[in-house]
């Protein structure tokens, strides 16, 4: 006699209801204690996605490629006609790194909305600011790491490509400001993501603002106004010149510290508005 056996991968152990006693009421101090847990959770989310590893890798590739292009194809600075040096070009990819950190920040939030996991997080942590704090800490570290590897790759590539070292007196300061910028960039991305809540719309909005709107404003608005734009401040922090710069715009530049406060101000505003909207809107 033939017998057929039905197989199933459903286990036979039942779900077990908790036998815990009466529940306690949450205190506001416990919200604060939830921040480390939120950081651990966000770190797991960040490192478990291939897209974040790809973004990280892109920062390295950009550093290598840009220094190599300057060393072997461009060779001399178009503004002062002097040969590029390691000290002057190791952070040349940082603008691209900034774009990547902004995108990483945006995606960290919008992908949660898009895939519905934000609801899981809000259900687990009703104090929504704790989730923002967790994301913020992890993104700051991610932006910092991207800035470091981008500059390290640029430095190594410049040296390997045979550039002269040049004047190294400003290297540490430039590197420090660059790291501040890439960290803030990731946070700015988080704020933009929280406000827009849609991946492609948020990334498009950020890129259009960076590459179109600010350039239009710079070409039309008075220097004293255009220097207050967020990515003008970012350029100032890196102490680099952009294609639209004129002697007048260069002369009107703010100090690096002022530019950093300005960029941080825009970032803080985006985070505050985003957090307020997170409280106001339903969690999807």
């Amino acid at each position, binding site marked *: 006699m033939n017998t057929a056996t*039905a197989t199933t991968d459903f286990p036979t152990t039942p779900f077990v209801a908790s036998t*815990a006693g009466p529940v306690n009421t949450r205190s506001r101090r416990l919200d604060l204690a939830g921040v480390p847990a*939120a950081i651990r959770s966000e770190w797991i989310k960040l490192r478990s996605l291939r897209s974040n590893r790809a973004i990280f890798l892109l920062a390295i590739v950009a550093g290598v490629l840009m220094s190599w292009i300057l060393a072997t194809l461009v060779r001399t600075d178009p503004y002062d006609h002097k040969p590029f040096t390691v000290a002057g070009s190791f952070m040349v990819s940082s603008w691209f790194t900034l774009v990547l950190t902004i995108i990483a920040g945006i995606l960290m939030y919008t992908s949660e909305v898009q895939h519905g996991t934000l609801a899981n997080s809000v259900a687990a942590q*009703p104090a929504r600011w704790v989730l923002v704090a967790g994301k913020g800490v992890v993104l700051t570290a991610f932006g910092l790491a991207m800035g470091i590897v981008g500059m390290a790759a640029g430095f190594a590539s410049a040296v390997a490509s045979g550039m002269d070292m040049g004047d190294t007196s400003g290297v540490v300061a430039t590197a420090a400001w660059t790291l501040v910028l890439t960290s803030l960039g990731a946070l700015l991305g988080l704020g933009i993501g929280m406000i827009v809540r849609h991946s492609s719309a948020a990334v498009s909005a950020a890129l259009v603002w960076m590459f179109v709107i600010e350039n239009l404003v710079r070409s039309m608005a008075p220097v004293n106004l255009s220097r207050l734009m967020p990515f003008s401040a970012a350029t100032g922090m890196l102490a680099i010149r952009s294609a639209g710069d004129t002697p007048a715009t260069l002369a009107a530049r703010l100090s690096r510290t002022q530019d950093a406060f300005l960029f941080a101000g825009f970032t803080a505003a985006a985070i505050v508005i985003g957090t307020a909207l997170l409280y106001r809107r339903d969690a999807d």
Partner: protein
Amino acid sequence: MITVSHLTKRYGNRLAVSDMTFDVAAGRVTGFVGPNGAGKSTTMRMMVGLTRPDQGDVRYHGVSYTDLVHPTRVVGSVLDAGAMHPGRTARNHLQAMAALSCIPARRVEEVLHEVGLDTAADQRAGGFSLGMRQRLALAGALLGRPDVLLLDEPSNGLDPDGIRWLRNSLSEFAAKGGTVFVSSHLIGELAMFADDLVVVGGGTLLAAETVAATLARGETTVIVRTTDASELARLLDRHDIVVGIDGDRLTVTGTTLAAVSKIAFDHRIHVIEITESSRSLEEILLDMTGASAEFVAA
């Protein structure tokens, strides 16, 4: 024990949930039923703090959800079985959830086993079938060893084996003192394991009662085929029993098979066939919610 009190939510001019008040008892499985647009999802979202009610509140053992120290250790919920990043593995998905609620990582392995996903733990959720997603979502709900489970359409995408497993698991969870509140459009399925029902329509509560009480709302119909239909109809009418005649066939309501057969026997009326039919839970609920259905097929 869940206490829902005067829950109200308005979106613009539309009243999604209106003054909803009911209790969900511990140790029982409570079904949450109603047509599309009845306010089920909005109610469940308000029950876990995802949507802010305009009025009213929900309490678990007397504490509102947002005041629970570790909400997921008291209430496990699945409101959207697809809520997972397709690029993340099942294990990573659960590890992130566990970390947020300060749940030890070893619990992740336990729930993966409980829902039968051990072998798929390192697969990305994007490659999961709907049934596997449903089980992963359920694993997330079980992470905190909650004593309350809130599940929105948990059997969607499960095969018959999976549905039976879910039904048995939820029944055992309730039998051990847990509270199960489960919405489903598969009313027949729900009838097999729910003890109580909360019926909603048009954003309002229509009934909150035991399944037995809901079934009692349905009328019993006795169908009789006889050689003397008109005479039997006359006799039944004399007993104030409502009868419909169609040839040799009588449709009798408001009484029992035993009563009809006794009258026929007492008056020596030849009965060819006699059957009793009760209305299904699905029919009863459709009647209850019919007037409030937002979308009705033409």
